[in-house]
């Protein structure tokens, strides 16, 4: 194509490197820092050598073969490596790059060995543009697809993703395969462009470019890799006009400057938002300006200000008549020598709001973690909805209808409010990989549907904010609400809430209490860790009190809290004991009045 002039080869290589960079990005968006694209490309590069030179296969078919072989090698590599956490994946794939070279050197009947082998250029420029266009299309269509949202979730909080019934391993495997398919395509394209394959063709150089391009261009958007690849290929061309020896050094300096000053790369969809957030943070710090993006800053609820006008818990039906939604039998959990939970046994009746109370460090959050499968107990049994789920994986427990929130908010910062909630719908989504790519009606319907339901959930939990604003820009209290909405999106039978009202003012807390009750009306069981005793007294049907991992008391909240050991252990000081007594009395009083 003449219009590219003598920059033709530069542009062509930019495209090849862009494909490599997108391959890196596809894995990286699921938190997989992998250089395995290089050896995968080596496989397809040498496959294309055989197909083109020995079998005269048309290039279009060779390109398709590259995608397929790449996909299969992605699958193959994922079998052992998808188990590893991100750091270790990086190390293992570096080793793969080095091992691939040894294989290429020794398989000389196929690869030409150390002498290398010439390969005829078969790709035309339209193949390149088509290949890049197709990959861009797939990436764009998947940026917020089911896979895209799952990848985002798995990258930022793998544990949270698992608690949302997302198949973490499966998502990673899909990303490995996608990354492999793109790297495979890149391998065929690159082989055809260099026209000569040697053991060093697919080696550290490529691995370096595929990583650096993504970092330079931006690792939070698929377009970043393309930008990075073009900058990396074209910049040296420009620099060569001024320098004969220094341009490699300029590349080095560039990388360092980017990492220091633009850590998210040139393309960063959330940059503007981040800058604003930062500005606000500084303003708050220096004591002026509007508090937060949500326009709402809620102070810590005053534990002891008594407002008992809220709706109260339905008087307990006899517990034993109702089936247990959740029962914990003799659970014990230790970390090192530290006992976090010690032989805990209790039962949560179905359709109730159940409180867990205790001072900081009592083991409440650990308990929640054990119940949701995030942590494994050392011994004891957990039954949920009649099934023994002891030792189950978190994802499987979540699939059975157990949802949770976290003590410190765990939202996906690079997703909007609605998208965050939509992650919770993953379990019920039916679209496959191809639906978004071919824009099937099913895909369109599903997206519209779920977005609509996500907005409804926003309203239900009372999120104040725009559906399409980034979750990170909400106030803390609203982020908590989004987290509850996300958990509800799973349509759980059991909902585990970890301090849902932290950072909320009184009315907000009450609204959460109301919400919990309304959920039980729908048959949900809610287990809530709460410091706000007022909330516990008002809305929980039953509660347990924990300290040092032990159970201090269980039963109706008022009884629990007035238990002398609880008062002693929990509140320690006499004055507090007096206050809680008065609180309990008042609660009984007002409860009586209402009835």
């Amino acid at each position, binding site marked *: 194509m003449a219009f590219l002039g*003598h920059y033709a080869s530069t542009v062509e290589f930019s495209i090849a490197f862009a494909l490599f960079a997108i391959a890196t990005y596809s894995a990286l968006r699921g938190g997989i820092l992998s250089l395995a694209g290089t050896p995968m490309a080596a496989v397809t590069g040498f496959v294309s050598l055989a197909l083109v030179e020995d079998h005269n296969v048309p290039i279009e078919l060779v390109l398709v073969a590259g995608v397929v072989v790449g996909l299969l090698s992605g699958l193959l590599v994922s079998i052992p490596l998808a188990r590893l956490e991100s750091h270790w994946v990086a190390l293992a794939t570096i080793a793969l790059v080095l091992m691939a070279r040894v294989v290429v050197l020794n398989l000389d009947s196929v690869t030409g*060995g*150390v002498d*290398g082998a010439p390969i005829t250029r078969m790709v035309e420029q339209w193949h390149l543009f088509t290949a890049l266009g197709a990959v861009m299309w797939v990436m764009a269509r998947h940026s917020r697809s089911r896979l895209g949202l799952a990848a985002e979730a798995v990258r930022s909080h793998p544990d949270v993703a698992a608690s949302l019934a997302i198949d973490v391993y499966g998502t990673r495997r899909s990303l490995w395969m996608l990354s492999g398919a793109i790297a495979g395509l890149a391998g065929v394209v690159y082989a055809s*462009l*260099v026209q*000569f394959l040697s053991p060093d063709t697919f080696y550290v150089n490529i691995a370096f470019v595929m990583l650096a391009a993504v970092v330079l261009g931006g690792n939070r958007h698929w377009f970043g890799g393309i930008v990075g690849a073009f900058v990396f290929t074209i910049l*040296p*061309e420009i620099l060569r006009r001024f320098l004969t020896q220094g341009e490699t050094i300029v590349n080095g*300096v560039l990388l360092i400057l980017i990492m220091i000053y633009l850590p998210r790369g040139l393309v960063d969809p959330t940059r503007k938002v981040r800058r604003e957030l930062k500005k606000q943070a500084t303003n708050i710090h220096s004591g002026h300006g509007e508090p937060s993006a949500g326009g709402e800053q809620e102070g810590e609820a005053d534990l002891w200000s008594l407002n008992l006008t809220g709706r109260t818990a339905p008087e307990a039906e006899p517990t034993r008549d109702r089936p247990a939604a959740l029962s914990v039998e003799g659970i014990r959990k230790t970390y090192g020598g530290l006992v976090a939970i010690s032989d805990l046994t209790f039962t949560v009746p179905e359709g109730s709001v159940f409180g867990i109370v205790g001072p900081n460090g009592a083991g409440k959050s650990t308990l929640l973690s054990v119940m949701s499968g995030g942590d494994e107990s050392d011994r004891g049994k957990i039954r949920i909805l009649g099934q023994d789920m002891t030792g189950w994986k978190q994802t499987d427990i979540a699939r059975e209808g157990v949802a949770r929130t976290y003590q410190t908010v765990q939202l996906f910062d690079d997703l909007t409010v609605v998208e965050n909630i939509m992650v919770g719908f993953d379990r019920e989504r039916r679209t496959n990989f191809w639906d978004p790519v071919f824009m099937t009606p099913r895909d369109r319907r599903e997206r519209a549907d779920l977005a609509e339901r996500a907005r409804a959930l926003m309203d239900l939990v009372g999120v104040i904010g725009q559906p399409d604003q980034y979750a990170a820009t909400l106030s803390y209290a609203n982020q908590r609400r989004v987290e509850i909405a996300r958990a509800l999106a799973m349509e759980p039978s059991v909902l585990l809430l970890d301090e849902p009202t932290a950072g909320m003012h009184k009315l907000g807390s009450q609204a959460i209490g109301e919400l919990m009750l309304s959920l039980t009306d729908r048959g949900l069981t809610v287990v809530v860790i709460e410091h706000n005793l007022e909330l516990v007294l008002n809305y929980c049907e039953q509660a347990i009190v924990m300290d040092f991992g032990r159970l201090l008391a269980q039963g109706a909240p008022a009884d629990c809290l007035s238990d002398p050991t609880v008062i002693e252990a929990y509140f320690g000081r006499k004055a507090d004991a007096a206050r809680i007594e008065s609180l309990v009395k008042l609660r009984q009083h007002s409860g009586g009045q209402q009835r």
Partner: protein
Amino acid sequence: MTRIRLLVLALALALVAAACGDGDSEATTATTAAPATTTTAAPTTTTAAQTTTTAAQTTTTTEAMEEPVAGLAPGNYQFGFTAVVSGAVAFAGVPHLQGLQLAEREINETGYLGDGVTIEFLVEDAGGDQAAAIAINDAYIANDDVLALVCCALSSVAGAIQPNIVEAGLAWVDHAAIAPTITDPDNAFRSFPLSQPSTAAIAEAAVAAFAPDNAVVVVTADNDGLVSDRDATLGVLDSSGIEVLGVIDTFADDTDMSGPATEAISMGADVIFLAQLGNTEVLMVQELRDRGYAGPIVGNLAIATAETWEQAGDTLLGTVLPIAFFAGKGDPMVQDFAAKYEAAYDTVPDIFAAQGWQVAWFMAQALKNGGEGTREAVLEGVRQIQTMETVFGTLTWDARGEATIDAWTFVQWSPDGELVIWDGSAEGLLPNINQ
């Protein structure tokens, strides 16, 4: 803090730029200061006397017999050079460039091509990267001022740039890469002699001199040139009926040879043949001798540099190697080059420097032959080069554009650190430290 960091980085950058620039200017002044040893009668000659093998060339040689220089108009004539001054191959690429630029200045200052005629090698660094080399050469091809291309220290890079150059049809001269597929009678030529014939030749000489029963071959397994050298050696050993006890693979970036040396010695061979890259061969010889190996070693040009003696000293005794160029050679052309090179760069030229120097003269000769500044003329001019007196000795080009040398010299180190001729006999081999 931020500003300081930025400043330091900028400073580092400036230092680098300064360092690069500095090297150049220093070299320039040094050259002008260098004793203007004779502008020896043109160091290259185009002789038509050589028997020609193809009909096409017979005609061009006849033309070449007439005075070819006449037509070259004053002006600056440009060639595109692909350098490797970064990355792992810089150990060869840097002297390549230095030799080339030294010759370029020499050619221009002495008016070798006539009054007002200068040549210029455009230099771009590909760092041994295929994609970068392709981009660089495509840009050269698109630049109409570039008359011919000089490239490649690596066969993989040569293979990568080849198709586009063949298509473009301008002359391409390979100054260091050794892949046999490079040369092409249409437009691809090599300016230096390949080493494989010399490897075979010295293997034959060693077999004749030492009459060994068996041998061990050590090779750098990830370098194509050395693997072909290994094959050349194995071919000779095979046809001479000598048992090969083992072939030991080493790798280019190895830093330790104690294991392979121990293995080689343990095989108890009569002769050890080395086909290794750069420093690994020096280490190998050192380890073999230090560990008590007393037999003859047959090496290659990797142990022929001045640094080698500094590094390995008397452990090098008793090792023979074939060589086309070494700075201590009595040849006046070599002496002249070595003196100028040392004056310019403060170091003795090695084989790579000689390759760079040689290709610059080769291109000048081609331009002179062609008689005008067009690609066609230069291509024609390259084709006309049949023999040339070079720092490697007398080179002769065959119809494929492949250079061969009239006679290879076999050398060995002497106890006072000089390369001296080995006469090809067992008696002529100087005793090594274990004898």
